[in-house]
């Protein structure tokens, strides 16, 4: 149900902005409705209170009327049964008229009350009854007073006796009015109580409904937005890790839906590009591997024959030819070095150079390098020293490649140093081998210190030719050290020699 709702909201073809606005407006509308309902209930309650006051007044008036009726009947019988003066008759007539005017006032009061509480048929009936009774009674009293004034007391008395039931009726009717009004009052109080309970539940219901709707809307809309964002986040992580196989399935038809569609599109494009690149890279690597093999085969023959001739396998070699052949040999070796370095670098760039991890001794590595370059150092009359503490731990890494790195650094140092010494030092600290190769050569300017680790660059911007070498050695050394999760750097002051450092984790895991 929850999921269904979220998906429903997600599928609504409106922008996220419109959805949020709609939800906000819905909440505002509910609050306004709640306010209107509250005000309406309040005003109804006020009207009821007003009606109750009216009713109260009506009851008081009815009681007065009932009292008046009694007094009037009493006065009429007293005044007319007992001989009286003109003054009493006047008073009597005034009193009868007074009753009538009280009654009229009361009827308008009853109409007011009826306006609030609805008409009461029995009351109207009683009122008309009173009206007709009173009409008759007024006429009779007026007639009797007239007869008695003229001295026909007996006739008047007789007439009055005959009107006695009318007076009783009037008394009864006013009594009935009071009873009715009392009943009406009780009913009205009951109604007011019920109305109060009703409006209380109404307000509570609206408030609870608003809160519930706000929570549901908030939850559903926020999840219809957050869900796709999370999905896309996960997809971006997959893309970043090179996995282009998945798509995001987002049902939103808003900005997020468009974003997801773009993401999928980008994913496809990237995936295709990635495949093309992978293919191209594979082709490039295969091409380079084949190429270097094909280039090497004839070169090996050239170098082999040259060496055989120089070794006098084919007989004595005149000095002039020997000199030329040595040049052929040097150029051939340089070319071979270039081919090998290019192959190495292209394999590293293609991520195809995997480390052959094994246990090794850094002391052995240094020893191997010293043995390989000793003769070169001796030729240039350089002192070659090696300082490796005996308690250096055994390392784990690609021994052949680490040897290649150190050989490159030491080879460079010897190549560029004309006099003095080349020193190899190895220490261990913080789980890392720290190897330094110092020389007393010309040094490297600060601006060249970064450049020399790039392809085909040597110090002072000169070409590789004057000092030989391929210009790829340091680049390869840097990449190999980085493959071991280590780093290479140089410290040098122009004119004061250089120290090349590399740091390697003692234990390299895959």
């Amino acid at each position, binding site marked *: 149900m929850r999921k269904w709702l979220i998906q429903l909201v997600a599928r609504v073809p409106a922008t996220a902005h419109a959805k949020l606005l709609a939800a906000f407006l819905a909440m505002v509308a509910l609050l306004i409705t709640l306010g209107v309902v509250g005000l309406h209930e309040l005003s109804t309650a006020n009207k009821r209170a007003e009606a109750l006051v009216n009713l109260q007044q009506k009851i008081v008036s009815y009681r007065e009327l009932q009292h008046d009726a009694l007094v009037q009947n009493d006065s009429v019988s007293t005044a007319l049964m007992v001989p009286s003066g003109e003054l009493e008759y006047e008073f009597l007539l005034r009193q009868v008229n007074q009753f009538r005017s009280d009654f009229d006032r009361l009827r308008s009061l009853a109409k007011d009350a009826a306006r609030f509480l609805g008409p009461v048929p029995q009351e109207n009936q009683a009122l008309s009854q009173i009206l007709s009774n009173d009409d008759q009674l007024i006429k009779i009293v007026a007639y009797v007073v007239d007869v008695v004034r003229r001295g026909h007391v007996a006739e008047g008395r007789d007439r009055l006796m005959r009107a006695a039931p009318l007076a009783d009726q009037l008394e009864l009717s006013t009594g009935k009015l009071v009873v009715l009004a009392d009943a009406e009052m009780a009913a009205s109080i009951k109604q007011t109580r019920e109305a109060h309970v009703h409006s209380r539940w109404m307000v509570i219901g609206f408030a609870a409904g608003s809160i519930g709707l706000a929570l549901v809307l908030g939850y559903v809309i926020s999840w219809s937005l957050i869900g796709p964002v999370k999905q896309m986040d996960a997809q971006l992580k997959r893309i970043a890790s090179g996995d282009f196989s998945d798509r995001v399935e987002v049902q939103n038809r808003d900005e997020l839906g468009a974003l997801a569609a773009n993401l999928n599109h980008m994913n496809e494009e990237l995936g295709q590009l990635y495949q093309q690149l992978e293919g191209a890279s594979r082709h490039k690597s295969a091409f380079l591997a084949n190429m270097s093999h094909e280039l090497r085969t004839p070169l090996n023959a050239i170098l082999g024959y040259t060496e*055989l001739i120089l070794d006098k396998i084919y007989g004595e070699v005149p000095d002039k030819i020997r000199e030329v052949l040595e040049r052929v040999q040097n150029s051939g070796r340089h070319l071979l070095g270039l081919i090998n370095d290019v192959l190495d670098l292209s394999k590293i760039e293609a991520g195809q150079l995997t480390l052959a991890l094994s246990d090794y001794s850094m002391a052995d590595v240094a020893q191997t390098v010293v043995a390989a370059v000793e003769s070169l150092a001796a030729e240039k009359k350089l002192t070659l020293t090696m300082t490796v503490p005996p308690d250096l731990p055994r390392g784990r890494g690609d021994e052949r490649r680490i040897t290649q790195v150190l050989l490159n650094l030491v080879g460079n140092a010897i190549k560029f140093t004309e006099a003095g010494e080349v020193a190899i030092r190895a220490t261990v600290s913080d789980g890392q081998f720290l190897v330094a190769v110092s020389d007393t050569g010309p040094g490297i300017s600060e601006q060249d210190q970064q450049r020399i680790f790039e392809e085909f660059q040597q110090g002072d911007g000169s070409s590789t030719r004057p000092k030989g070498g391929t210009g790829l050695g340091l680049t390869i050394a840097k990449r190999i050290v980085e493959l071991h999760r280590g780093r290479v750097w140089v410290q040098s002051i122009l004119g004061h020699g250089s120290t090349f450092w590399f740091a390697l984790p003692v234990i390299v895991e895959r």
Partner: protein
Amino acid sequence: MGLMGTRILVTEDNEDNRHILRDLLTSAGYEVIEAVTGEEGVRLAETQRPDLILMDVQLPGFDGYEATRRIKGNLALRQIPVIAVTSYALSGDDVKAREAGCDAYVAKPFSPRDLLVKIRECLAQGTPGAPS
């Protein structure tokens, strides 16, 4: 073992390399037999029983590793030392050579002098009866 009469089987598909090895080994006093393919190398090893085999690993047909496996799998031939000759920089070639049963390993380009040293070492050691 006297130098005279020591026969070395050179299995190498490149004619120049065969020529160089022939000249080098002959001048060093060895007798040289030549094979161009892996099949031929195995056949000559069986029929000629050389004292040592130089095996190029990149050969047409089955390669030098396969040829070495077949030779080392033959009880009559397994004591013949085999030196694998590989191209440079193919990572793991030394491991593959050892796994195939080669007794030593030389990477191209080799110096003729170094190759001769290695050949003499192998011949002097003789071959362990059963290489592990």
